[in-house]
């Protein structure tokens, strides 16, 4: 979720009247935003915005716009500059077609850049390029002192080795290739253009290079300072709609600050003027809105609140509105988006909750039901239950268990070795617990009933999730036969079957003191004394006996068995 910083005073300057912190908190709810930090002395606030699909809200100007509409109930005005004539041109060279083909731009007049405006502008530029622009891949933004630029401009691909200019933060001219190698921004974003035959640059009519998008601006024009009052703003990218949307957001933000926006024409060679009044046209059925909101609203009421969210109703016919979303938004895909906007503008607190009244049957999942029965028996036999992480380490699951090359589902992008693999067995989790409780009064009789994931190449997903019961008995006199008694009791009460064990070998159990558990001729688990080598690996110093069974297999076996008996 994007988080922005701003000053509460600066934010309030963009509103019809100042708000207290409490009022602002409530107003921000209507922008799905929340104050995360507040510094009383300076008035600095940090605001987290939940809507990842509304980049227009990721700035103080955008939040203020939403608050003006949804909180102050002002209809959001249309921005006039969208219909004005361009004052200059940018020619786009066809050699950028497969590299970074689109550009949008405008000029801002009569806005003196204050410190707050500059900080907000830089922050918005970063949030949009990083988050919405996926680290400058889809869009990148450049802002310049327009006094140092002469029109027309050209946006063209040039040879990396032959072209040079002085980038921001440097004093000497570098070739584009050197910029990628030496300049911090070149190192960070160089991969976006590195393999292209030509690199994109913006050049003015005096052949000055203004910028090397999406990497870095020139030191001469590409530095905006407090006090500047004439700006050039451009956005380049690979997705035309994203470029236009970003240009529109920036233009509306700067217009809200009091700037005069002067559109520019982009010559592809076909002419496109930016900012460009893009919109989503949505048909809103009034009956559908009333059904979803459980209301019986008049079209006037609906119009009133939709206007507060910047939507324009261009036609109304037979109970259907034709709505146009504002040019700085691209999240309106379906009429439900307008319905939510209406509900937010009117206020969620204006709706009265209604109870669900129809009868539905509650039902527990079959495996949970199974585990309830088993848990009761285990607890009745004096075992204490644990719940542990399903994710574990290779070291715990295999190395310490003496299972070389053990198979399990592993995570590709691990954050920590400790949480790297989905456990195929519960026993390692129980031994880990035992290893940490040597000082706790014995005997230790513990169990876990939990999910495990088994590798199975026959399965569609290459694995299956199943439910296991693992149990462990540890104290100085723990023996196979004592735990066997418990297992026997469990089988008697739960499966209604006699316990049958077949001698078996597992690398982590003592040979000759290990059995596979058989139910209806199926192997459903194992029991055995844990091998001293494994106990030593875990640092456990008391004899330990354990069993583990696959509950899904047991359930299936005894159900099959019952069917057979019935026949």
């Amino acid at each position, binding site marked *: 979720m994007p988080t922005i910083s701003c000053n509460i005073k600066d934010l309030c300057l963009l509103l019809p009247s100042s708000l207290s912190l409490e009022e602002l908190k409530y107003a921000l709810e209507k922008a799905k935003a929340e104050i995360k930090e507040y510094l009383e002395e300076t008035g600095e606030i940090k605001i987290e915005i939940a809507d990842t699909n509304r980049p227009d809200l990721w700035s103080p100007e955008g939040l203020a716009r939403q608050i003006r509409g949804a909180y102050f109930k002002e209809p959001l005005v249309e921005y006039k500059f969208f219909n004005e004539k361009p004052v200059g041109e940018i020619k786009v060279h066809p050699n950028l077609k497969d590299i970074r083909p689109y550009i949008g731009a405008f000029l801002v007049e009569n806005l003196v850049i204050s410190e707050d405006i500059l900080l907000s502008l830089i922050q918005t530029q970063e949030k949009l390029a990083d988050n919405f622009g996926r680290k400058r891949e889809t869009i990148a933004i450049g802002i310049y002192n327009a006094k140092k630029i002469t029109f027309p401009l050209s946006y063209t691909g040039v040879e990396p080795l032959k072209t040079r200019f002085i980038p921001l933060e440097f004093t000497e001219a570098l070739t584009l290739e050197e910029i990628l190698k030496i300049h911090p921004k070149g190192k960070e974003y160089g991969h976006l253009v590195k393999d292209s035959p030509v690199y994109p640059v913006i050049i003015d009519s005096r052949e000055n290079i203004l910028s090397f998008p999406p990497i870095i601006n020139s030191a001469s024009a590409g530095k905006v300072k407090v006090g500047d009052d004439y700006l050039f703003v451009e956005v380049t990218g690979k997705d035309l709609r994203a470029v236009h949307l970003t240009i529109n957001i920036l233009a509306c933000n700067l217009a809200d600050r009091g700037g005069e926006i002067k559109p520019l024409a982009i010559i592809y060679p076909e002419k496109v003027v930016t900012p460009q009044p893009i919109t989503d046209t949505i048909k809103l059925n009034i009956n559908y809105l009333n059904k979803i909101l459980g209301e019986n609203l008049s079209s006037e009421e609906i119009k009133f609140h939709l206007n507060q969210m910047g939507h324009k109703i261009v036609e109304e016919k037979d109970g259907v509105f034709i709505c146009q979303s504002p040019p700085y938004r691209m999240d309106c895909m379906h009429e439900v988006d307008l319905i939510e906007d209406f509900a*937010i503008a009117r206020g969620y607190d204006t709706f009265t909750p209604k109870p669900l009244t129809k009868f539905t049957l509650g039902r527990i999942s079959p495996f949970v039901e199974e585990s309830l029965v088993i848990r009761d028996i285990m607890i009745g036999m004096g075992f204490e239950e644990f*719940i542990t992480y399903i994710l574990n380490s290779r070291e715990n699951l295999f190395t310490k268990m003496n299972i070389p090359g053990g198979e399990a589902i592993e995570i590709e992008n691990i954050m920590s070795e400790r949480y790297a693999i989905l456990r195929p067995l519960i026993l390692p989790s129980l031994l880990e617990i035992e290893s940490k409780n040597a000082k706790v009064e014995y005997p230790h009789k513990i169990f876990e009933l939990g999910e495990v994931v088994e590798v199975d190449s026959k399965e569609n997903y290459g694995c299956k999730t199943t439910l296991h019961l693992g149990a462990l008995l540890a104290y100085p006199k723990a023996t196979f036969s004592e735990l066997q008694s418990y297992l026997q009791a469990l089988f008697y009460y739960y499966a209604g079957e006699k316990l049958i064990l077949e001698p078996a070998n597992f690398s982590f159990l003592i040979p000759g003191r290990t059995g596979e558990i058989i139910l209806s001729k199926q192997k459903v688990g194992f029991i055995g004394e844990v091998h001293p080598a494994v106990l030593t690996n875990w640092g456990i110093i008391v004899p330990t006996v354990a069993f583990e069974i696959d509950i899904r297999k047991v359930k299936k076996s005894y159900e099959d068995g019952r069917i057979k008996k019935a026949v």
Partner: protein
Amino acid sequence: MEQNIIDTLHPLEIKLLDLFREASRVSEAELLTLWKEEPSSLRTAIQWLIHKNILNEEKGTEEEIVTVTETGMQTLKEGLIEEKVYLTLKNSQGKNLTLKELAFSLNLTAEELGPIIGLFKQHNLITIEREGKISFSSLLPIPKEVEEKKKLLQEISRHNYYPTKYLTSKQREIIKSVSRKRGGKKSLFKIDTLIEKYYSLTREGELLLKALSTADKMALVGPLTSELLESGKWREVKFREYNINLPAPKVIIGRKNPYRDFLEKTRKKFLAMGFQEMEGPLVETEFWNMDALFMPQFHSARQIHDIYYVKSPKYARKLPETFISKVAITHKNGGETGSRGWGYEFDMKKSHRLILRSQGTALSARALAKGPDIPGKYFAIARCFRYDKVDITHNCDFYQIEGIVVDTDINFPKLLGLLDLFARELASASEVKFVPDYFPFTEPSVALHVKHPQMGWMELGGAGIFRPEVTIPLGVEVPVIAWGLGLDRIAMIALDIFDIRELFTHNLSQLRNRKVVK
């Protein structure tokens, strides 16, 4: 008079009284030596006699003692942090780890690592180069201070306790350096004050001891036996009176895990509200986890930093043909849903990518595709996984409680009504607040804020009405409420814990001491 008291004496009490025939004032340590049985039974007998005003307890002089903490015992087993740092540096020679990488690989904080780096630098074991890279000289042994610390740890761990007066000044310094607070969580040693206790008989006790003859001891019967019953001797003997107010020995009982208790109670509440339980695999496809929920394939929440990807196999073999093609066209241009869609070419292969389930909503998507009951209510207590650093407030492996409500007349007020019900049933909340929120798969969306009796205002969960772009491609034509609740914070209050990791605790004694969840 004495005889009445003698009748009530337990054999342990008589045994203890006998120890005062030789000396009138005996220390606890001496009693322990003479006792020759479980120390706990001696302490019980002492308490009993004090209670009956037969024995006096006096406190002697104070003595400062040092013991090894649990962390210290653990360290003895696993090695000192300094040794781990030394070994890690040695094993990764040539790699020139940075300080950050070193701290990360050993899960140490900067404050923990700082003094060790200082010590190693002082011994010329390491030098810190540009960008915090550590250059390590393998020829030098581990500093002798570390060896001394280890030796001391071993020495003290061999004793139950160790009086500090026997420590050398150097040892004292070492102990001081690693016992930050008294018994602080990370310190190796703990310094306590031990007060030796002395016992003597009261006047009454002395009289009692004189009156206590061997015969008395024999005539009293303790436990009733089968033999007494069968032979009829029970008619002749005298039963010793028990002091029924004395504390009985502790028993360890089989127990449900308290967190499980909490989850089961939550499950019962959902069943009582008429919800059916859903279940599904922990390893999922991007399709069910995200595509089917209309989260675009380029959505930021789908990137590597939120989701765990399976290493092998990478892809599911197949996905249900009708659903995937409908979901694909809906992402592209809205399909039959009346939406304009996200407007991008859907990548079928990406749909098959295997991941670890990151949200319980994946189960809701599956339930919709299976053809839910109408009306129908569904819930799941689903284990989910997120790419997150595990700390006091975050787990990467956790339970999520999610579900859906399907019906022909679902609308926004009913969504709020459902949340209101959850607030009352699951959080005992008296007040609720509905706040606009964003989820890629619901519109309208709402966050549920509740006033919890102990915690005050908190966010309990999120909900909304599924977008038609979610329900229609999965074959559901009626509106569906989707909801998800974060109950872990409420669980933590119920279990009285402050660290979210303790929901999955390994600590047996903590588990034995926790009370039942109400």
